[in-house]
């Protein structure tokens, strides 16, 4: 792709989604944008970008942004976060929240729903541990297409085989034609919403737990710092943050600190109240 077209595309992505498009990610262009180029009736991704530059069509710009940001995921991705959620987070919240108060979880890059549904399955499986405590999940993603898919809760045979133990598949899915549909009762405590992490967080509510996995990697340092700092403001002082395996808060923010020995898990940093100490 010509340098000026590539730069145009990179700038657009940065502005719309905060995602950094580097030349090494250039290989994604054909697979992600090829279908849009065909739909627009142009012969190549290069021509598509040229068309975008002349037309400046908001809808097309958004479709391209969306195509470049949707990422694959699977049920119980990386496993450890879900084990830690069960072993560390649930017991802490059950212990430290008043009876009758709902705990709140935010899946900030929920993609096609595998993460929130995995959590919903954990909550269902561990319901005795919850001692009646309810947890609401906000599942958000930048892409409205992917949120629609998440809401539908219908997955291909390939998708239900990656990460999902067969016992849970049998228990929580039903086969519909060639597809697998999740038990609608698992959706009861999940609210799906299209949300761009660059937007203001005023409307999202407050959370005890935030899963923000495998999304910060796409942002530059300033954006990462800004997102983490603003998330911290929406979290309980004893809240938990989960990041992806290749992500960290170190060098970005003092709002969180890693939990020793628990990979990918972070806590709000406990602040010493200076006035009280003095």
């Amino acid at each position, binding site marked *: 792709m010509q340098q000026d077209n590539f730069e145009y595309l990179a700038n657009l992505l940065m502005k719309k989604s905060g995602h950094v498009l580097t030349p090494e990610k250039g290989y994604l262009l054909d697979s992600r944008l090829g279908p849009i180029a065909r739909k627009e009736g142009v012969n190549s991704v290069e021509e598509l970008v040229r068309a975008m530059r002349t037309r400046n069509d908001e809808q097309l710009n958004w479709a391209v942004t969306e195509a470049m940001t949707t990422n694959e995921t699977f049920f119980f991705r990386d496993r450890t976060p879900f084990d830690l959620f069960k072993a560390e987070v649930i017991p802490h919240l059950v212990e430290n929240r008043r009876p009758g108060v709902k705990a709140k979880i935010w899946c900030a890059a929920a993609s096609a729903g595998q993460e929130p549904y995995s959590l919903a399955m954990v909550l269902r499986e561990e319901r005795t541990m919850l001692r009646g405590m309810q947890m609401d999940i906000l599942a958000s993603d930048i892409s409205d297409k992917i949120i629609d898919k998440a809401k539908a809760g219908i997955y291909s045979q390939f998708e239900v*085989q990656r990460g999902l133990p067969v016992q849970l598949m049998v228990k929580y899915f039903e086969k519909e034609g060639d597809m697998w549909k999740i038990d609608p009762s698992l959706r009861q405590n999940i609210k799906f919403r299209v949300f761009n992490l660059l937007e203001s967080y005023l409307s999202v509510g407050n959370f005890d737990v935030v899963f923000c996995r495998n999304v910060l990697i796409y942002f530059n340092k300033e954006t990462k710092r800004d997102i983490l700092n603003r998330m911290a403001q929406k979290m309980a002082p004893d809240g938990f943050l989960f990041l992806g395996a290749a992500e960290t808060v170190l060098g970005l923010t003092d709002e969180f600190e890693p939990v020793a020995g628990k990979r990918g898990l972070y806590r709000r940093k406990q602040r010493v109240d200076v006035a009280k100490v003095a």
Partner: protein
Amino acid sequence: MKQCLVVDDSRVIRKVARRILEDMEFKCTEAEDGAQALTQCRADMPDAILLDWNMPVMNGIDFLRALRLESGGDQPIVVFCTTENDMGHITEALRAGANEYIMKPFDSDIINAKFAEVGLV
């Protein structure tokens, strides 16, 4: 090194599965049907069995039921790997003592994920 017995009447499938499993550092043996597999298990019980359903002589589910009655036959972790992809077959397999279930077509990601699920990797 863990040992995995690949049971499938298709030579191609056995070859593909073997390549994936050897990459995962399993030592592989092969059988073409359930009867052959049972004979091999009696001689040398593997750690894991990747098991097709529809095969001549003895099919996968009959093999699994027979295996679980053998002495030491409760030990191997059995992962079905079959084109049968309806709930009826899957629940029948689990009831007969299967530990995991792969619906064909499969790839190395799926085998890896399923083997991780049952603690084999």
